[in-house]
């Protein structure tokens, strides 16, 4: 397998990380490194005076913490499997994943989120400083402004039209189809230079939307968990296929036209349910365009 000079910041509990790696492997690529992060999301509760502790103490405490393991119902797992009936490479999202098959090196670490200064130090120490973002909250300006570091992200929406949260659902609502865009992250929300964008056919949800309120919520989460990562994986694969093994921090990228599009916030449940109903009556089948 060919090596891509990329460090994947893989959230241990996020399905997107493994999807990226599997899609890259499908074209014969593995990445230089996976930084497998156990994101805690908040300061450990027992430490009220967190900021008073020295960096070494903080780091030692953080590394000993464990994020709670996500629990998935049987119904959710079944739904995720059904959603993957039509994807190009179905992925097992619920078993332990062997990252070492997809990367030259795997390093496990723990961080609160991207605001964690000890985590910043860890990123600065990496040999390959072109990172693929997968999850972990907003990346602070101090990292994005650092010219030594490059962050690549695949956003679930066609940029510049659909920026912000719930991109998959806003794309279907306002553009009639889902999409994904690979871009270089900058300080704005999804405002960086665009490397590649692609739109897809709507997924088939026929028979999955029974009308019960909790079913909508389950479908919403299942779409984000087991469908959306495939669109991103395919876009990333396109990018890497076109880039060959060049310098990933210097890919051809176009600045966004800010007069176009909107930065959306999280979608209200009522609207989300309408999107689910809308795609429940579409019979497009394959997700690949």
């Amino acid at each position, binding site marked *: 397998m060919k090596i891509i000079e990329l460090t994947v910041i893989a959230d241990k509990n996020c399905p997107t990380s493994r999807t990226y790696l599997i899609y890259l492997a499908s074209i014969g690529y593995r990445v230089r490194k996976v930084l497998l992060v156990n994101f805690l999301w908040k300061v450990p509760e027992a430490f009220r005076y967190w900021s008073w502790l020295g960096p070494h103490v903080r780091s030692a405490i953080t590394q000993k913490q464990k994020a709670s393991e996500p629990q998935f119902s049987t119904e959710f797992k079944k739904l995720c499997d059904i959603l993957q009936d039509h994807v190009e490479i179905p992925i097992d999202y619920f078993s332990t994943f062997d990252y070492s098959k997809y990367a030259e090196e795997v390093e496990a670490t723990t961080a609160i989120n991207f605001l964690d200064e000890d985590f910043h130090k860890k990123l600065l120490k990496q040999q390959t400083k072109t990172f693929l973002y997968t999850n972990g909250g907003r990346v602070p300006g101090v990292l994005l402004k650092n010219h030594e570091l490059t962050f690549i992200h695949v956003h679930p929406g066609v940029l510049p039209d659909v920026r912000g949260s719930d991109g998959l659902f806003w794309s279907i609502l306002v553009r009639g189809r889902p999409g994904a865009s690979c871009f270089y992250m900058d300080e704005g929300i999804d405002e960086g230079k665009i490397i590649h964008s692609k739109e897809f056919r709507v997924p088939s949800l026929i028979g999955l939307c029974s009308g019960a309120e909790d079913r909508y919520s389950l479908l919403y989460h299942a779409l984000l968990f087991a469908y959306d990562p495939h669109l991103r994986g395919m876009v990333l694969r396109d990018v890497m296929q076109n880039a060959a093994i060049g310098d990933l921090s210097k890919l051809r990228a176009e600045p966004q036209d800010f007069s176009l599009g*909107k930065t*959306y*916030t*999280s*979608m*209200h*449940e*009522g*609207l989300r349910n*309408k999107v689910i109903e809308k795609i429940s009556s579409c019979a497009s089948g394959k997700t690949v365009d």
Partner: protein
Amino acid sequence: MSYETSVECMLKLEVNFAADHLTANVFNTEAFLANLNWQNLDECEVAVLSKLCRKVEISHHLFSRYSSDFNKPETDELLAIQHLEFFCGLCFWIAETRADMQFLNCGLKMLDGVLIEQSVPVNDCLLDWANHLLETIN
């Protein structure tokens, strides 16, 4: 729900004309809303309303005055209930007349109680309007 019913709903929610909304450094939310010619909104006004939507959705508060660049509130005083109700109606109005789903999203969240320490009173006209807008999405 017909266009006339939407107009009727907005007329019920209208608030009285107030003094100028923008002084040297302060944006007066209540005066801005009160002075709006909502049946004939221009792009600048819609852009300001969009910024207010972001305040609702991100900070979960709507204050009666902001700095002119909208970066910070200039007071602790929250937007009065009748203005809040009118703003919610405006969101639906823009969603209906401009097919702007972002405003529908904001209006729905306001009705659902996204604001902390403030709430849009239960108003049948707004609830019917929200349901109508959701039903007409295709």
